[in-house]
């Protein structure tokens, strides 16, 4: 009993020391630094394409390159779309329809998905006979699969409702590294542009930065007052953006290890489901439970635009690698391409 109490006291004391260390390097705030910068002008993006075909709620979308994207719906299908023509390149039936996430490998050779089956299923798009088949089923998580992201054709990172993230070897189907430390369901993950680290957002209201190779948690960011549903790296890899059920998004600076700013508005009272930065990071597009997507000026923390057009919750959003368009996916079963 005494040992546990001792450890708890030590944890609290270390947290206080981290808070003090952060304060000690805060000799400039973002607000002060950009006080002389003007807010960007109103951003008006139009729907250019509507991707129709799913029969139920869309839970995830991920761009493969700047033309092809994959979406996952609880109608039990993964669809790979040519967003320019709206054609379906592949319509992949899933064993389990309770899918919560999907990912496109950077090579374009594979897609992955998972959900309430607790597994991450890998599909080979470039099989010899042209049929798309399950290549591997990565099973070991004891909770739902909330997110997955490929590092390359042989490695994928998953986040789970079992509070862990895992780095898998796809060839052998084995867990290379387990990233444990979150105290709540892991809801989302993002891989750094240099592929050396990744970030996870969880229901313990924190975001963690992990070293992919040594498995250690390098940094933990708090401040949110509810579950973090969405997380992403800033395009330069030096900052992290989170979106939460507390109706706000936050920007954290990795180098000074602290929260920089919060994106919130008294008129927004519903949770953030998804987010994506624009190419320069000056804009942050965030999807909300109230069917809209708000566009924020990331430096001035003001809303500069809105994407409205969906008839239900915006569950997922992604910006193309070349920054030319963004795709929103919704519970209304449609995906929309905007620019």
């Amino acid at each position: 009993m005494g040992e546990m109490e001792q450890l708890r006291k030590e944890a609290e004391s270390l947290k206080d020391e981290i808070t003090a260390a952060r304060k000690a390097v805060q000799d400039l705030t973002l607000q002060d630094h950009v006080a002389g910068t003007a807010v960007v002008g109103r951003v008006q993006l139009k729907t250019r394409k509507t991707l129709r075909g799913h029969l139920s709620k869309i839970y995830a979308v991920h761009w493969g390159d700047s033309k092809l994207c994959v979406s996952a719906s609880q109608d039990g299908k993964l669809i790979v779309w040519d967003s320019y023509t709206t054609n379906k390149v592949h319509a992949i039936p899933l064993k389990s329809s309770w899918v919560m996430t999907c990912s496109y490998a950077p090579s374009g050779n594979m897609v992955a998905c998972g959900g309430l089956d607790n597994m991450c299923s890998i599909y080979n798009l470039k099989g010899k006979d042209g049929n798309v088949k399950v290549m591997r089923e990565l099973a070991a998580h004891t909770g739902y699969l909330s997110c997955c992201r490929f590092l390359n054709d042989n490695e994928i990172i998953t986040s789970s409702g079992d509070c862990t993230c895992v780095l898998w070897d796809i060839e052998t189907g084995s867990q290379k590294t387990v990233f444990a430390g979150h105290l709540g369901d892991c809801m989302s993950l993002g891989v750094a542009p240099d592929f050396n680290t990744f970030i996870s957002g969880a229901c313990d209201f924190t975001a963690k930065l992990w070293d992919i190779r040594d498995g250690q948690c390098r940094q933990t960011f708090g401040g949110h007052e509810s579950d973090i549903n969405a997380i992403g790296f800033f395009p330069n890899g030096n900052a992290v953006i989170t979106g939460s059920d507390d109706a706000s998004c936050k920007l954290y600076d990795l180098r000074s290890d602290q929260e920089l700013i919060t994106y919130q508005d008294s008129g927004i009272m519903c949770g953030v489901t998804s987010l994506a930065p624009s190419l320069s990071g000056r804009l942050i597009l965030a999807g909300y439970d109230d069917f809209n997507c708000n566009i924020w000026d990331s430096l001035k923390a003001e809303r500069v635009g809105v994407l409205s057009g969906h008839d239900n919750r915006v569950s997922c959003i992604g910006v193309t690698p070349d920054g030319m368009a963004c795709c929103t996916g919704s519970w209304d079963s449609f995906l929309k391409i905007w620019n």
Partner: protein
Amino acid sequence: MDELDETQLKNHVDSLKQQLQYNRDKTSVSLPELTKWIEEKMNEDPFLNPDILKDNPWVESSKCVII
């Protein structure tokens, strides 16, 4: 933290010790570099620079022709 057993609590404390060691830059150094990066990239950002979207792959560039 109350749900953790002794091993998990020990790991939690060890992780906090490691995280405390992180080499933090001053915000007076990191913020100007962050904003400089953004401002330089804004010219190439299609959502901020309308010239880039003049060639928009999602918009038909020619009208439909009935043959």
